């Protein structure tokens, strides 16, 4: 992949940044540095290619709206950490893996097929609950589940650092 070669320094900077942010909010990067740096490089390649951090191990469509759920950290990271001690690509792992009590293995893909995703999206639109007595809408971070009651979601999730566009209106 020579055409996508990212300078080492850039990989290093992002690796350190992600590691610091992960540790500050109770997450852990994969301690296998070579493996992890390879994935960080993938994020930077995708940033150049698509303009956002599409998961390095999934096929991005290149349309941001369709890829929101797989922008790293993806919507599937937390449930996968709970069930399998690793996210799909192995960038984030649980404390058990960090401590060497669990081995890192491939895990099943939790993301639905393109067709299913569209169906689910349509269904969830029709299921929205409205509570008119709330003074402010409640926003939910789709990455980590953080909830807040305010007019607009925050620019960046204070817990997991996901960007504003990853919030959904949970109650209004």
């Amino acid at each position, binding site marked *: 992949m020579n055409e996508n070669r990212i300078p080492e320094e850039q990989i290093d900077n992002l690796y350190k940044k992600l590691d610091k942010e992960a540790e500050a909010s109770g997450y852990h990067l994969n301690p296998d540095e070579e493996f992890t740096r390879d994935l960080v490089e993938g994020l930077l390649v995708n940033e150049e290619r698509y303009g956002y951090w599409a998961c390095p191990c999934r096929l991005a469509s290149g349309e941001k709206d369709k890829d929101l759920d797989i922008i790293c950290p993806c919507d599937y990271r937390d449930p996968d950490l709970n069930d399998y001690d690793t996210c799909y690509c192995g960038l984030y792992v649980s404390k058990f893996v960090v401590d060497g009590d669990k081995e890192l293995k*491939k895990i099943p893909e939790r*993301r639905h097929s393109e067709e299913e995703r569209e169906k689910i999206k349509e269904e969830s639109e029709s299921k929205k609950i409205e509570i008119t007595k709330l003074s402010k809408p409640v926003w939910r971070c789709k990455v980590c589940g953080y909830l807040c009651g305010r007019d607009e979601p925050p620019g960046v999730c204070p817990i997991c650092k996901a960007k504003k566009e990853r919030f959904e209106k949970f109650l209004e």
Partner: protein
Amino acid sequence: MKHVEGEKRGKIMLYAISTCVWCKKVKKLLNSLNVDYYYVDVDLLDGKNKEKAKEEVIRWNSLCSFPTLVINDGDCVVGYDEEEIKRKISNE
């Protein structure tokens, strides 16, 4: 589609993503086994070819996840599963 020459064990076709670490592991494994195989990095294809490759993957793996390894147009291994890949390739 790229061809990696090696010992012929039937038609081995790998659908991969260029940035995926697990896909790279499958390539390394196939190289270390010295088998003849073809691979395609689906993320590097242009629109029409990408759609065509996706359709091919979906025939074997409805979630269209990667790596998907198709053996002799009859069997498939999804994900990096060293034992399963070795077993299925040696059966050919």
